[in-house]
């Protein structure tokens, strides 16, 4: 027995000693690294490029880990469940702010951010929606974004189409400015016999796409998710205005979009415009490289239409948040990188990468930025109309309930009124349980 134990101790000792020796050598070789987790899309490539420049300047490596959009949120919060996170910075969605702040996952940047960046030059709507929660800063702006539309410029400029449109509607064929014009243009291009349709809207159940698509109409029609003071959802999300907005959205999906359009999320909207199946596609402007790389100058962009005087675009984009579950030295390194990134010189470089946008007011107003592509101008003009979904810790449950029931209305499983009543009930249950509903 003693012999066996002696052998076991010797073997285990060798393994432990060799691994300690290995670790020591490894530490000497590895350069200081800032690890950033971001969703898998063009701005993440741009961030890596800019990070490489930061490494050249400072010797500190920046590693951007890209995670597919569908699993981004789940992976990040699963990581936060550990005692240490694999990332130092997460470029998280605006809706995550509440959870990150209330659960102590994000470093409070309130004292540091104004000293590192001139907040006066950041677009106020972006600063408030992307960085602030309950008046404190938990993120710094990285990639502000707005929901809008891409359209087939070549179809809109076709003389035959223009003449036919003018004969039918008595006005020029142009990117629609109002939802009523949008419906006309969508109906005009809907020709199932030619496998052509008017529009692809965010109607699928993946992540937040359906809610981001529908809420713009709900707000423009005068509805809201809830009363901002009491959080009562009944009478707001299921108000006659909201029902009318959802009916309008459902009719667009049913009458002017390709078969199966109720499953369209970001990817499907992009593919259907690129494949020449639809004339207009609802999308966040940050996805523009996906169109421009395929269609070149045959694609154009326009802001989310208005209803009367009311124009609202869903806020998109993400901010830099520093994990509280990484050591303080890394947190300081992360802050230095963010400050470097937000300087005007870097912001000008940043916007030259495909899909990358800025909240820097000076850059946004510059002629160079606005004339770079019509996506830039449409994006910059949309910033004043941005509005966001809930950003409280319970947002993912609220989002899931909203997605499920709005989708049921689009599927035809429920009427718009029934679907919105179901959302009101589900949201009030969630908010009541969270102690946020003032009865």
């Amino acid at each position: 027995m003693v012999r066996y134990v002696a052998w076991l101790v010797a073997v285990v000792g060798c393994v432990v000693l060799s691994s300690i020796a290995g670790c020591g050598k490894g530490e000497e070789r590895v350069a200081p690294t800032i690890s950033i987790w971001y969703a898998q899309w063009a701005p993440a490539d741009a961030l890596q490029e800019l990070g490489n420049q930061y490494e050249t300047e400072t010797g500190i490596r920046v590693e951007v880990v890209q995670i597919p959009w569908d699993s981004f949120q789940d992976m990040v919060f699963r990581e936060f469940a550990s005692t240490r996170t694999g990332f130092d910075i997460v470029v998280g969605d605006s809706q995550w702010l509440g959870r990150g702040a209330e659960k102590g996952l994000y470093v409070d940047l309130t004292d540091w951010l104004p000293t590192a960046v001139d907040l006066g030059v950041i677009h106020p709507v972006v600063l408030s929606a992307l960085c602030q929660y309950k008046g404190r800063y938990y993120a710094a702006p990285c990639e502000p974004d707005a929901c809008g539309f891409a359209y087939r410029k070549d179809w809109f400029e076709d003389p035959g189409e223009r003449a036919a449109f003018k004969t039918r509607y008595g006005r020029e064929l142009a990117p629609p400015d109002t939802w009523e014009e949008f419906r006309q243009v969508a109906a005009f291009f809907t020709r199932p016999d030619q496998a052509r349709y008017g529009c692809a809207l965010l109607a699928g159940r993946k992540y937040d796409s359906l809610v981001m698509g529908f809420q713009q109409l709900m707000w423009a029609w005068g509805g809201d998710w809830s009363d901002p003071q009491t959080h009562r959802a009944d009478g707001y999300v299921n108000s006659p205005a909201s029902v009318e907005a959802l009916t309008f959205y459902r009719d667009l999906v049913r009458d002017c979009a390709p078969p199966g359009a109720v499953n369209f999320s970001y990817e499907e909207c992009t593919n259907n415009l690129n494949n020449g199946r639809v004339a207009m596609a609802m999308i966040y402007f940050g996805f523009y490289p996906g169109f421009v790389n395929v269609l070149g100058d045959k694609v154009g962009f326009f802001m989310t239409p208005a209803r009367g005087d009311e124009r609202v675009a869903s806020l998109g984009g993400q901010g830099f948040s520093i994990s509280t579950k990484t050591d303080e030295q890394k947190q300081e390194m992360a802050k230095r990188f963010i400050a470097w990134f937000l300087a005007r010189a870097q912001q000008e470089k940043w916007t030259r990468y495909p899909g990358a946008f800025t909240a820097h007011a000076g850059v946004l107003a510059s002629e160079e930025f606005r004339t770079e592509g019509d996506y830039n101008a449409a994006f910059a003009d949309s910033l004043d109309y941005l509005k966001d979904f809930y950003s409280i810790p319970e947002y993912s449950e609220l989002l899931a309930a909203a997605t499920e029931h709005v989708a049921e209305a689009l599927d035809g499983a429920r009427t718009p009124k029934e679907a919105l009543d179901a959302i009101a009930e589900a949201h009030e249950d969630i908010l009541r349980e969270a102690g946020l509903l003032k009865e």
Partner: protein
Amino acid sequence: MSRELYAQHERGALKYAFVAPALILLIAMNVFPLCYTVYLSFTDAELVGQSHRMVGGANYGTVFTRPEYARAIRTTAVFVLGAVSIETVLGFFLALLLKKDFPVKAVVLTVLLVPMMMPPAVMGLYWSMLLDPNYGIVNQILSAFVRSPPLWLSDPDLKLFSLILIDVWMWTPFMMLICLAGLGNIPEHVYEAAEIDRASRWMVFRRITLPMCAPLLFLGVLLRLTDALKQFDLVMATTGMHDGSTRTLSVLLYRVMFGSQKSGLGSAFSYVVLVVVIALAMLFIRYIGRIRAGQGAY
């Protein structure tokens, strides 16, 4: 202590020393999580929160009263009953066809087994493309015969059926294999005796083939049932977790645990699912035992 007694003692200690690592692993990986989940199910624990408090049976109350849980149970039941019964009938039929030897039997068997060997998530994505209403080959073929082909994955009345269809495509070969093994176990002389007695084909099937195949058939059904009850990957890859009409128990569990991040509620829910699965499995095992006992004389 005598030398013999000492050696005996050392052998005993060595025996335990060999078993100990596996035992410790088992406790750490299985028993501890099971017990900890029971504890969590009585708390309001969240995935990323540090502290939690006891909430009594509130989580179990939620599981038994919220309509979304009842709907997920209904959806899972329809999926399991639909998929497993079709797979069993089809698998048995295929096994009967493939029982006798023929020149390319090995090739046919290999081709039939391919769907079973593919990962369900990949199959889900693959079938999403096949069933796409605009580009999918299924509707392109169907459009030659019908004016408006079905919207397989967007029509609320068809979605669950489509998932059953995919599952049947994937798992019928498994049932076929099990049935083939069962059929192979029936001695030839039993059929010869039936032939001498001039039993009809239907009588042979009903009195010999089916009953003698039953224990293995039920084992196959049990395996498929427990697997179908856990259906997750296929749903996530096709319709996702926000579709109430196709949301199975496992998908709802994922949504509660990782979407809403409510570990306490998720733990209570997982225990309810576990109890249902174990109860079903016990029922089947007892039934198989009875059949085997009935065939004991043979």
